[in-house]
């Protein structure tokens, strides 16, 4: 049994006034140790909601998450938090606007009572390709790509076993996206985390992930390997549509 994460018939329902929206509808998959699992879909597919359910930001309809074969409840303890971290999509909203990068990076260490905070902060900054001159700057003094590096550094401060990434490069320019994707590959080699990456971009997901789940309207359409995706060997109509669409426009 090499699965670290098991998602077992996960459903998430949002109630808005009198209306009920099934954001995630009976989704199941497994993520192996050390694997980076991809989830791809368009807007409203539920891909980000799955990630938020796993990390505990939204509540599933029934218990459906297992880590290391142990059920993970809605109430998360401090050690649950330490094990799993999240990188948000928007680099402009995920860092506290009135705190320096140093404050932001040391916060998780302070909460968990770590030692050698200064050393760890310096090391974290350098490991994501930033420099020490950035340490006492405020987020508004950094570019989008730099902020996202800080967000990744922050997520890795507690050395989590699982890293969840919600469209980490969607808000970035292509050249910056390339830098961040290269960084994630390098960090994965150094830290060996298990990851789930959500994106709407097939190219991005295929670059980082070996297995990819295709989502549409809250349902899991199919799970393909990145090789299958590249060679166009897919079994469902929707995935084929996505593949064709991603190749660009044909006149």
């Amino acid at each position: 049994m090499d699965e670290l994460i098991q998602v077992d018939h996960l459903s998430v329902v949002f109630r808005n006034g009198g209306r009920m929206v099934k954001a995630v509808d009976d989704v199941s998959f497994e993520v192996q140790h050390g694997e980076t699992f991809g989830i791809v879909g368009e807007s409203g597919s539920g891909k980000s909601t799955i990630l938020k359910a796993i990390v505990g930001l939204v509540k599933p309809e029934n218990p459906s998450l297992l880590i290391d074969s142990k059920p993970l409840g809605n109430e998360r303890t401090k050690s649950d938090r330490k094990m799993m971290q999240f990188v948000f999509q928007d680099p402009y909203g995920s860092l506290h606007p009135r705190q320096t990068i140093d404050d932001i990076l040391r916060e998780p260490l302070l909460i968990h009572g770590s030692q050698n905070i200064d050393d760890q902060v310096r090391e974290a900054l350098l490991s994501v390709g930033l420099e020490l001159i950035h340490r006492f700057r405020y987020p508004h003094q950094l570019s989008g790509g730099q902020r996202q590096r800080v967000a990744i550094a922050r997520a890795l401060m507690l050395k989590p076993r699982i890293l969840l990434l919600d469209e980490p490069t969607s808000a970035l320019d292509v050249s910056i996206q390339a830098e961040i994707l290269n960084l994630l590959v390098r960090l994965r080699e150094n830290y060996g985390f298990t990851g789930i990456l959500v994106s709407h971009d097939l190219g991005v997901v295929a670059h980082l992930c070996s297995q990819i789940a295709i989502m549409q309207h809250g349902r899991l359409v199919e799970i393909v390997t990145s090789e299958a995706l590249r060679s166009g060997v897919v079994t469902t109509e929707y995935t084929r549509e996505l593949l064709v669409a991603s190749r660009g426009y044909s006149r």
Partner: protein
Amino acid sequence: MKTVSGNTHLISVRSWLSSDSPSSRRQALCIAFVRSILAIFSNSAALTGLFVVLTLIIVALFAPLFSGHGSPIAVNLAARLAAPSSTHWFGTDELGRDIYIRTVYGARVTLTIIMLVSLVVAPIGLAVGTAAGYLGSWVDMVLMRVTDIFLAFPRLVLALAFAAALGPGIENAVIAISLTAWPPYARIARAETAAIARSDFIAAIELQGASNFRILFRHIVPLCLSSVIIRLTLDMAGIILTAAGLGFLGLGAQPPTAEWGSMVSSGRDVILDQWWVSTIPGAAIFIVSLGFNLLGDGLRDVFDPKS
């Protein structure tokens, strides 16, 4: 030699303060602080207001110096109701006390009241508002209903009621004013918190395992501070007027303490002939209130330009 090292010292302070890559938390805070001060200086309303407020503080602190070591309570019935002259710059009141000296000492009472009220009202408002805005559900409902109850009463009337119930005196006046002044701060803090609570950076901190208290105190309160400070400065005029109102009605500071409100009151009967007895302390109230309003407006332009 001396000048050269003096100059280089100055140059290095300047570059330390304008660096865009601070090398310590202290430096980053200093830079941010200096930047705010410079922003305030560039706004003429704020600068004028700041000048008035600083004058109030300095006059209050060094009252004996400014009054030439005269006494604010020395009675001199022979010189009662004397017009402004070179001996008594602002004239004397019905007991022959020098009005200039009493106005100067009155600054102390005013400053004490507004400082104490601020120190009570801001923390309470922040605590209630941020807790309500972040924790939501029944906590929000209970806290906001309590706030609504206090807000429903007209401020001066409620302050009067409390002061009358507690008895006269400055401490009781402070308590009475604070009890009526805190609700709007809770409202402001709650509105700001509700907007912040949904942001990604707060979610990120929750995901690190921070306790609710830590999130509120360390991450949310700092973001509400500027709104609260702006509101406080704009409110200052109201607080001063309420205190003066209490003093006018005989509650608050008791004779023979010089307090601007009671000074205005004591000159009521002679306002037509001996105008200086009421008008001078009245002018002091007006100038200080205006100063705080200007400062508040300026601070708002500097820190919250979108509103």
